[in-house]
C-alpha cells in the first residue's frame, strides 16, 4: 500500500530558457522581430499595422473591417478565387484580423512554402484590386453578419458594456460597425482607407520559425518596397468617472442573464500591472479564483465566471463576465459585488502563494507553438514593451508584495464606479434587482439608452 494522503512533491528543479526575441532593421529599413526555432518546418509570420477601426469615420463605423474583407478579394494578376487557390495549393493558412488598434496579416505555412506565401501576402498588401462587384457582395455579407449578432447574448452584453464604459471615444464602437454605418460605406471609402492607413503605413514584421536572420530580412526586402509613414495620433477622450449604474438590455424569454460588470482602468504599461495580474488571479482570472468558485462550485448559478484586466493600446478596463440562470441574476450580482468588496478587505498568504506559483510555473507553456511565439512578440510590439520583457517576467511577479496586491484591489477596483449590465428577459430580472438599486437604465442591443426605469 502506498501513502495517498499527501500530494507528491516535485522532482528535480527544471530550467527553462525564454526564447530569444531578436530585433533588426533590414537593409531597406523595415523593423523585424523574430524568434528562431528549429523543431518543426513551420513559420508563423505576422505584419502588424497600427491602422485599426479607431480610424473609422463617425458615420462609417465598420470601414476598417470591410477594408480587410475586401483586401484579399483579388490582388495583382489574381482574382479572389485564384488568390485563394494559390494559398490552398501551398497548404498555407492566411488570415487578416482587425481590432480597434491594429490591422494584421498572418501566415502559418510550411517552411518550404514560406517564400511563396510571403510573396502572395505582399501582393495582397500592395496591389489589392478593390473591384465593385466584390465590394457589393462583401458589404452585404458584413451587414448580414451584423444582423446575426442581434441574437448573440454574449456579443450584445459585451458591446453594450463597451458602449457604456467608453461613451463617446473610439473604443466605444464595435469594429464590425452598425447596419446603417456600413450602409453608408462606398468603394471609394475603402480605397481611401487603404491609401491613407494601410498602403504606406508603418509595418512591424514578426516571424517565429525555422528561419535564420538573413533569410527573413532578405525576403522582406525582396517583397516589400513602399515607403513607410507613421500615422497621426488620434485624440482619445475617455469619459469622466461616474457613480455605479445599472443597465438592462431586454431579450424576451431568455434562458439566462448575461452579466457584465466593470469600469475603466490603466494601461498595459502601468506600474500596477503585475500586482493587478496577481490580484485578479485571486479574484476571478482562473478556475480556482473566488468569483468562479462562488458562482459555479458553491452556488451552481453558472457554467463559469471570469474577470480580467483588458488592454487596448491607449486605454484599459476591468471586466467581469458570466452567464447565469435567469432566476439567479440578482443573487449573482450580489455575490460578485460581495467578492469585489471583500478582496479589498483581505487576501490570504495562501492565495498569494497559489497565484504566484500558477503564473510563474505556467509561464513556459506560453512559448510552445510557433503561433504562441509570434503572438508573444506581437504583445510587445502593440504595447511597446521592452525586448527583455519576458526575461524579467518571473522576477517581476516574484517581487510583488502582499501589501501591493491588497493595495491593487483597494486602488484599482472601484466598487462605487461600476457599470453593471444584464442582457436577458426584463420581466424576470427587474424584480430581482429591486434590493440592489432603485434606478435602472434600459439600453437597446447596441448599448444606447432607451429609457430610465424606476424600480
Amino acid at each position, binding site marked *: 500500500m502506498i501513502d495517498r494522503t499527501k500530494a*507528491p512533491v*516535485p522532482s528535480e528543479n527544471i530550467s*527553462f530558457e525564454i526564447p530569444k526575441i531578436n530585433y533588426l532593421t533590414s537593409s531597406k529599413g523595415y523593423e523585424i522581430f523574430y524568434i528562431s526555432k528549429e523543431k*518543426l518546418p513551420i513559420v508563423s509570420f505576422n505584419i502588424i499595422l497600427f491602422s485599426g477601426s479607431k480610424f473609422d469615420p463617425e458615420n462609417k463605423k465598420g470601414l476598417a473591417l470591410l477594408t480587410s474583407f475586401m483586401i484579399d478579394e483579388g490582388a495583382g494578376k489574381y482574382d479572389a478565387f485564384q488568390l485563394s487557390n494559390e494559398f490552398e495549393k501551398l497548404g498555407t493558412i492566411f488570415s487578416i484580423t482587425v481590432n480597434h488598434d491594429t490591422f494584421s496579416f498572418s501566415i502559418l505555412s510550411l517552411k518550404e512554402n514560406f517564400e511563396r506565401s510571403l510573396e502572395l501576402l505582399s501582393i495582397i498588401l500592395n496591389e489589392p484590386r478593390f473591384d465593385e462587384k466584390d465590394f457589393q457582395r462583401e458589404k452585404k455579407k458584413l451587414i448580414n453578419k451584423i444582423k446575426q449578432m442581434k441574437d448573440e447574448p454574449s456579443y450584445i452584453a459585451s458591446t453594450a458594456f463597451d458602449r457604456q464604459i467608453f461613451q463617446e471615444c473610439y473604443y466605444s464602437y464595435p469594429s464590425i460597425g452598425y447596419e446603417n454605418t456600413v450602409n453608408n460605406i462606398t468603394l471609394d471609402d475603402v480605397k481611401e482607407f487603404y491609401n491613407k492607413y494601410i498602403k504606406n503605413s508603418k509595418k512591424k514584421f514578426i516571424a517565429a520559425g525555422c528561419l535564420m536572420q538573413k533569410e527573413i530580412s532578405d525576403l522582406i526586402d525582396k517583397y516589400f518596397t513602399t515607403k513607410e509613414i507613421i500615422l497621426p495620433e488620434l485624440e482619445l477622450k475617455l469619459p469622466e468617472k461616474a457613480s455605479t449604474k445599472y443597465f438592462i438590455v431586454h431579450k424576451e424569454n431568455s434562458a439566462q442573464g448575461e452579466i457584465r460588470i466593470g469600469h475603466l482602468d490603466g494601461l498595459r504599461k502601468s506600474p500596477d500591472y503585475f500586482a493587478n495580474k496577481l490580484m485578479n488571479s485571486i479574484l476571478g482570472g482562473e478556475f480556482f479564483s473566488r468569483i468562479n468558485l462562488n458562482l459555479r462550485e458553491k452556488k451552481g448559478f453558472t457554467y463559469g465566471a471570469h474577470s480580467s484586466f483588458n488592454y487596448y493600446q491607449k486605454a484599459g478596463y476591468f471586466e467581469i463576465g458570466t452567464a447565469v440562470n435567469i432566476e439567479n441574476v440578482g443573487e449573482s450580482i450580489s455575490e460578485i459585488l460581495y467578492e469585489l468588496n471583500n478582496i479589498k478587505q483581505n487576501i490570504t498568504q495562501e492565495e498569494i502563494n497559489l497565484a504566484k*506559483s500558477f503564473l510563474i510555473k505556467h509561464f513556459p507553456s506560453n512559448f510552445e507553438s510557433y503561433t504562441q511565439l509570434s503572438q508573444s512578440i506581437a504583445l510587445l510590439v502593440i504595447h511597446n514593451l521592452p525586448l527583455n520583457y519576458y526575461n524579467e517576467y518571473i522576477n517581476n511577479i516574484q517581487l510583488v508584495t502582499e501589501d501591493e496586491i491588497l493595495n491593487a484591489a483597494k486602488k484599482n477596483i472601484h466598487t462605487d464606479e461600476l457599470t453593471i449590465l444584464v442582457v436577458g428577459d426584463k420581466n424576470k430580472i427587474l424584480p430581482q434587482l429591486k434590493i440592489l438599486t432603485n434606478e435602472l437604465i434600459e439600453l437597446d442591443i447596441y448599448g444606447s439608452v432607451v429609457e430610465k426605469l424606476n424600480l
Partner: protein
Amino acid sequence: MNDKLLKINYEKHKLDNGLEVILYQDKSLPIVAVNIWYRVGSANESKGKTGFAHLFEHMMFQGSKHIPKGEHFRLIQEAGGSLNGSTSFDRTNYYETIPSNYLELALWLESDRMGFLLPALTEEKLSNQKDVVMNERRQRYENQPYGLAWEILLSNLFTQNHPYSWPTIGWMEDIKNFKLDDVINFFKTYYSPNNATLVIGGNFDFDNAIKLVEKYFGEIPSNNSIPNVNTPEQNLEDSKKIIHEDNVQLPRIYLAWHSDKIFGNYDASLDILSDILTSSKNSRLTKSLIYDKQIAQDVNAFQYSGKYAGMFIIISTAKPEIHLEEIKKEIFEQINLLISNGISDEELIRSKNSIKSHYIYSLQKLDVIVDHINHYNFYLNEPDSFMFDLKRYENVTKENVIESAKKFLTNPYVELHIIPKKSKRI
C-alpha cells in the same frame, strides 16, 4: 521529410489490472502531458438517462477519497499546469499539461479519481454539478441562436434506440433526475483501469514513468463486465423535414445523411468531399451559393463520424429575402453535377495539400499530440498512426470521392429549417 516528422516513437505497456499505458518522449520543453481516455461516452447511455457520461465527467473534478473538492484544480494550477476533460459519443477524456517535475502529482491525482472516487461522493456535490451542467446546457445550446439544431438533427436522423440519437449534453429532464445511485453505478461499470488508456507525453524518463504508473495505478482493481453498446442498423426510409422557430434573424437549412463510420472505407473520401464542397472560396457550394448566386450568407459541409455511425452534414444560412428551398435546390444541383461530371485533379490536390499541412501544424503542441495518440489507439489500436491516417487521404482518388457522394448523398436525408419567430421576421 514528412515521413520522419509524423513517426511517433512510443512504448506501450499493459498493467496487470488491464490499464493500457502509452509513453511518448519529447524532451524539447520541460513539460509533460498526461491524457486518459475512458472507453465510455454518451453512446453508453440509455434513453431516460441521457447526458450522464458528461455529468459524470464533471463529478470527476469534485474530489476523491484523498483529494478534497477543489483540490484537483488547485494543485494542478499551483504547479503551473492546465487541465480539463471532455465527453463525446464514444469516449471521455481527462488531461493535464504540467511542468515535467510534477509528473508524479498528475498521476497521483488521476489515479485517486480512477480508484477512489466513491468515498468522496455527496448529494451536495451532485446537486451543485447538476446545476452547473444545466447552466452549461442553457449557455451553450438553449440561449444560443441555432443552438438546438444539433440535437434536433440527431434525434431525427437516428432511431430512438440508437445512442447517437441524443446529444452528449443530454436532455434537460434527464439531467435534472440523476440520483447519487446513478453516479455510483456508472462509476462501478465504466471507470476501471481495464476500460482506460493513459498516455504520457513529453519530457520524462521511461523507466521512472512506468514505475510511477505502477505505483499509483497498479493496485486499482479491474472490472471484467463492461457492457457492450447496442447499435441497431440505421436506414432512413424516407426523407424528413422539420421546421423549428428560434430567436434568429436569418433562416438556416441543415441537411443530414447517414454516412460511414470513423476510419470506415469511405470516411476519408467523405472528408475530402466536404473540402471540395465548402472548405474555401473555390469550393463548389461556397462558389455557387455565396459568390455566383449570392443567395447564402455561409455554407459548411462536414463528415462527422464515430465508432458506431457517421453522418454527412451540410449547413447553409440564407441571405435576407431568400427562401431556403432555393438554397436546397442549388445544393442538390451541385451534388448531382459532381456525381455526373466528376471532380478535377486540382480540386483533389488542393484538399490533400491542406490536409497534409494541417497534420504538421497539429504537431506544435504536446497536448494535441497525446490526445491524437489516444485517438489512434482507441479507434485503430495503434498509437503511431499519423502516417497511416495521412496516407488514407493521400490514397483517395477522384473516383472514390464521386463514389462516396453517390453512395450516401443520394439516399433519404433529414432536412431541418431553423427560421425566425414570426414576431421577429425582418
